[in-house]
């Protein structure tokens, strides 16, 4: 059995092609039922996300070429694309390469943003669809579970997902760096734009205790307040509430500084030096950069955030190199476990052993038979072999069945009965 993977991703195909190819959940289960024929393509799974469409199969090794061709045709026809339309976007991997590819995809090493957390969930979903469609068998079960383990290992052992790579998440990261935990801290939103909302959502998820919202139009402020269980404060009373805030996210479209240096001096005094983290995502800036010169006040404008993010991305890429090594060693491990899973050699050995026994007996008694014509000799040989095969047939079948359901005890018992060495 070979593992074959055929697909397109954001590197090989533009979005126009990917969107043509995308499989809904329903299309995915139906497609799989059509693709998996039990002969050449034994098992199948479809990963379809906005960045990739990939078909993963377990295919009979002898029919590998035909199998790959079938999958390609399947991708063309499933979406009614002209034959050959996809050929310049498709990649196909077999065995080691396919396993490696899947490991990299699930660990988010192949993603547009390395380390993004969604793709593992998408692979998980693809697997449960395949289970639903009844097209996940022994090989894919094992492969997918191994994949989950690899993804988890990479996530915990490397820092590919460690540092924030989005502006909205930076507030959480900086808040944690300064206050250790955001639990019970107070965040203030000045301006209720989309970016502020996104940041606030991350902060609330990180356990922020209070959300204060100041906006020129109170309606938008109230909407956000409802969403996060926050409190609205009048925009002109900003100075009164500012000392209560630990993290301040500023995103108004005001043309001048909303948070000035004298205001911040007052805030600092009221806070008895407790640090404040100002995040200014507005352009033009709403926080006077001079504020950042005050002790225990940290100010980040949009450029600062961008530059931190790009250094975080570089850091993730460095970590990704370590992740690749883990993938490498896991591919080898998976290969080994797959080999242990293969019943073929055992069956071959058993059949050969029985045939050798028959031939040896024939040789021993040959002289008693007197002279025979070559046809007679062939007939005797054929008779012996068919007898041996008839006798061993149910045994081999039982072995295959036991192996199919991972009943290794029975397989071992049969091996022992026939005296097969490891």
């Amino acid at each position, binding site marked *: 059995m070979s593992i074959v993977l055929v697909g397109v991703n954001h590197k090989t195909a533009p979005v126009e092609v990917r969107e043509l190819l995308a499989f809904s959940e329903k299309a995915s289960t139906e497609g799989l039922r059509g693709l998996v024929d039990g002969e050449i393509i034994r098992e199948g799974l479809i990963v379809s996300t906005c960045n990739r469409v990939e078909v993963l199969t377990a295919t009979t090794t002898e029919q590998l070429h035909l199998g790959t061709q079938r999958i390609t045709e399947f991708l063309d026809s499933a979406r009614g694309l002209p034959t050959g339309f996809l050929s310049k976007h498709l990649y196909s991997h077999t065995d080691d390469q396919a396993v490696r590819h899947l490991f990299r995809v699930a660990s988010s090493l192949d993603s547009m943003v390395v380390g993004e957390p969604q793709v593992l969930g998408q692979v998980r979903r693809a697997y449960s669809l395949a289970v639903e469609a009844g097209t996940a068998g022994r090989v894919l079960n094992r492969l997918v579970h191994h994949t989950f383990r690899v993804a988890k290992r990479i996530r915990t*052992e490397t820092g590919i997902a460690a540092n924030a790579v989005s502006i909205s998440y930076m507030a959480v990261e*900086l808040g*944690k760096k*300064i206050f250790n935990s955001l639990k019970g801290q107070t965040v203030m939103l000045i301006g209720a734009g989309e970016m502020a909302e996104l940041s606030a959502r991350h902060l609330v998820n990180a356990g922020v205790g209070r959300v204060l919202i100041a906006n020129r139009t109170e309606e938008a402020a109230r909407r956000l307040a409802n969403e996060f269980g926050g409190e609205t404060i009048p925009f002109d009373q900003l100075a009164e509430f500012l000392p209560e805030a630990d993290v301040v996210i500023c995103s108004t479209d005001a043309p001048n500084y909303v948070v000035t240096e004298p205001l911040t001096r007052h805030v600092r005094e009221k806070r008895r*030096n407790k*640090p404040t983290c100002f995040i200014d995502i507005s352009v033009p800036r709403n926080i006077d950069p001079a504020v*950042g010169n005050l002790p*225990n006040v*940290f100010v980040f404008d949009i450029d600062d955030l961008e530059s931190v993010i790009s250094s975080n991305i570089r850091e993730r890429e460095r970590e990704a190199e370590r992740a690749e090594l883990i993938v490498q060693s896991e591919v080898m491990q998976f290969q080994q476990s797959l080999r242990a899973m293969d019943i073929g050699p055992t069956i071959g050995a058993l059949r050969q052993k029985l045939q050798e026994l028959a031939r040896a007996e024939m040789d021993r008694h040959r002289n008693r038979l007197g002279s025979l014509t070559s046809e007679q000799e062939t007939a005797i040989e054929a008779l012996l072999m068919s007898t041996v095969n008839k006798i061993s047939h149910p045994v081999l079948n039982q072995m295959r069945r036991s192996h199919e359901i991972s009943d290794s005890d029975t397989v071992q018992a049969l091996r022992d009965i026939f005296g097969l060495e490891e």
Partner: protein
Amino acid sequence: MRPLLLAVLAAYLNAAIHSILAFVNKRRSLQRVAELSIAAGFILHTAALIADWAIDGHYPLFYLRETLSFLAWTLVAAYGLILYRYRAQAVGAFTMPVISVLTFIAILIRSGPNGEPAATGVGATWFFPIHTTLWIFAYAAFFVVFMASVMYLLQERELKLKIFSANFHRLPSLSTVNELATTAAALGLTLSTVGIATGMLWSSTRYGRFWHNDPKEIFAVLTWLLYLLLIIYRSSARWRGRRAAWLGVVGFALVLCTFFGTRLLGGYHVFG
């Protein structure tokens, strides 16, 4: 107990290497190896100290060798507490090498009755071992203040400049190191206060006077004053940040002078 101390050194070195690797690579498995090594080293070290006490017949905190060993032991205990209380594993990458070096020197030095004044007589009252022990604890606390302050300054600088190095994500947060420095400074001040008091009591029972005007004493009082200042400064606001951290760093220079005071400038104090 040199063979035992060698085993201790091996455990600490192993812990130091794994702590540094865990710091660089952020691998939990490495950190676990480090922590197990530290635990093993600490148990062996405790046994070595007790064995020293039993065999040599005096409290194992008199000669330089003993002092360094005891200091290393205290620092390990301090790191254990920090790990337990703050989960600040990065501290290990900084402390364990120092602890290893201290242990190594303690093994190298063959100071004893021939090289240095005899230990006889000093242990006559229980003030003396208490005085020395408290000071060792205080030294360890001041070292923690120093280390936390350095971590604070490194990160504060990066936050202000908005350039984050690779270490940035590995060090404990500002509030953690700030709290750690404050707590350790308060502890160090308390310990050294009682340390000075017991020293004076001991001196008065043995020599009939509280004060000898020797360099170690003068430095000790200066150190004490500086950390008193630091505590007052820190407690006058909710958070002090950079200036307090600088005080913690500079203060440690004074602590080193106190520790090595006799070596450098003579005086009637010996180590401990």
